[in-house]
């Protein structure tokens, strides 16, 4: 009698349930972490009051504000889920749903913990699981990386629909910008992955990780591709410095200006889930996945429950380090202007990504696939880039426009005023103003 399911299905379902909970919990605490990191960077304290006493228990249970995500979640649920009058009601509700679904299913092909052996499992005499080897992976499909790329690009629908359905100019502009940004950065993202696949010769993330454990991490062979990939994943998950969709100073909240309560929370959760997925792909492609040098239990040959847990922890630690870097980037680097974001994609990353693919293909054709050879290729490409920058055509779009009477940008031949000339400013500073009543442009 054949079993109900094979070992792979059995393991996959367990991985799905467990990792889904880990990811949802991590997402909640990433928001806490982000607030803490931003607080330390800005010399504040951050959330430190909310504990697990829920306001009703007699004892005070502070816990450094660790109850904050729980309180946030409850509050999101209890707030009014408002739909503005002009909005397209169906699409307005659909948008956050379409945003969160790709974010929650993208990580299915991440190889969290190598492979394990599963024995026969009988439940009350019924043959439930057939014995066999299985990957510790959400779905052991042979399209791997392509699936992740496809799912990650579905997130753009939520943004576009959310911006359009709100019937708000800020939302609309934010949605448009975000759509343009996300689709632009998808191309170099695909190109950098192509460069890795050319060496790996497979699209299965588990095989790519095993290969890195054997031959050295791909960050050593492809530092340039890793940097491009990181930049693109920042832009894909709408993180600063590419978060023009929600540039507060220009667009209020961008595409989620009109959203409230749980529908807003879904947009918010999706951003953090995208960060986890992008970081997991980065770790799997460039940082050896679960492999850590000199720790035998993280080697693909190690099979068993213990090594599996160690591998998962190693993988997740790397993912968290990548996310922490994303957060530090967000709170230290100012937002890039919108047209410059698109220029970076179309003017730099896409030609460079294609150049990287061509260069890697030539290296593979010549059979030069050792780490040092690929590293030399990367260095040569980066050097060629640096030397060619002065030769490229420049557009002077950021010219300083001279203004009559300005202290900062005076007309040619005019003396730059070092002191305020406006009568109001002079009255305030108590210095007698010029009698001619000259009103400056500033």
């Amino acid at each position: 009698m054949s079993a109900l399911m094979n070992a792979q299905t059995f393991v996959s379902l367990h991985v799905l349930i467990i990792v889904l909970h880990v990811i949802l919990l991590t997402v909640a605490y990433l928001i806490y972490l982000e607030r803490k990191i931003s607080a330390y960077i800005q010399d504040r304290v951050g959330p430190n009051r909310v504990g697990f006493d829920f306001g009703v228990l007699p004892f005070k249970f502070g816990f450094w504000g660790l109850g904050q995500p729980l309180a946030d979640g409850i509050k999101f649920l209890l707030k009014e889920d408002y739909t503005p009058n002009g909005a397209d009601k169906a699409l307005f509700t659909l948008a956050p749903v379409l945003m969160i679904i790709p974010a929650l299913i993208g990580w299915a092909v991440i190889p969290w913990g190598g492979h394990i052996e599963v024995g026969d499992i009988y439940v009350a005499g019924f043959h439930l699981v057939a014995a066999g080897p299985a990957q510790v992976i959400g779905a052991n499909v042979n399209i791997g990386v392509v699936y992740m790329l496809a799912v990650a690009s579905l997130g753009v629908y939520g943004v576009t629909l959310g911006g359009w359905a709100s019937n708000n100019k800020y939302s609309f502009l934010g949605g448009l910008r975000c759509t343009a940004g996300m689709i632009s950065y998808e191309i170099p993202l695909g190109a950098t992955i192509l460069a890795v696949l050319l060496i790996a010769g497979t699209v299965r993330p588990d095989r790519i990780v095993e290969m890195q454990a054997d031959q050295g991490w791909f960050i050593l062979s492809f530092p340039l591709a890793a940097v491009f990939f990181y930049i693109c994943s920042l832009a894909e998950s709408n993180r600063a410095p590419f978060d023009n969709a929600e540039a507060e100073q220009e667009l209020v909240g961008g595409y989620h200006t009109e959203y409230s309560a749980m529908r807003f929370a879904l947009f918010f959760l999706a951003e953090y889930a995208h960060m986890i997925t992008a970081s997991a792909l980065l770790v799997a492609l460039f940082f050896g996945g679960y492999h850590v040098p000199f720790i035998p239990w993280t080697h693909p040959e190690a099979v068993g429950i213990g090594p599996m847990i160690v591998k998962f922890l190693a993988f997740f630690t790397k993912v968290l380090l990548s996310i922490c870097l994303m957060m530090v980037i967000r709170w230290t680097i100012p937002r890039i202007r919108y047209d410059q974001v698109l220029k970076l994609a179309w003017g730099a990353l896409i030609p460079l990504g294609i150049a990287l693919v061509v260069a890697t293909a030539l290296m593979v054709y010549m059979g030069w696939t050792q780490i040092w050879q690929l590293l030399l290729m990367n260095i040569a490409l980066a050097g060629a880039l640096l030397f060619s920058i002065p030769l490229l055509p420049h557009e002077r779009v950021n010219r300083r426009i001279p203004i009559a009477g300005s202290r900062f940008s005076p007309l040619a031949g005019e003396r730059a005023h070092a002191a305020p000339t406006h009568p109001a400013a002079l009255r305030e500073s108590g210095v007698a103003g010029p009698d001619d009543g000259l009103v400056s442009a500033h």
Partner: protein
Amino acid sequence: MPPTSTDVSHYLPIGVLLLIAITFAVVNVVASGIIGPRRQGAVKGTAYESGMNPLSSARKRFNVRFYLLAMAFLVFDVEIIFLFPWAATFAQVGARSDDAALFLGRVLFFLLTTVIAYVYAAKKGVFRFD
């Protein structure tokens, strides 16, 4: 080694995960709609535009640049997707063999057509965003 076949049952977990994700999203949206308060109002229902009265609907024509960008995206993204099967198999052809040269030459020609498209679009000003 673990199984690496193309068994359709390997896609089953993705379906399960998709169902879980849909349920998660729908339950959250519905629960928040049921639990939260509901108070309507004429002013509350207007679009939030920083306190100004909205002048008109936001469903307006927008810059044609976004259409051009979407078209350019289609060209390049389809090209990248076409290259994936090649990238996954090229390493197995064998370095410096005749097959590999043919394989590489065809892909380089394919990329050349894309480069022509890129140069054309750049000359037409598709990538001028200011």
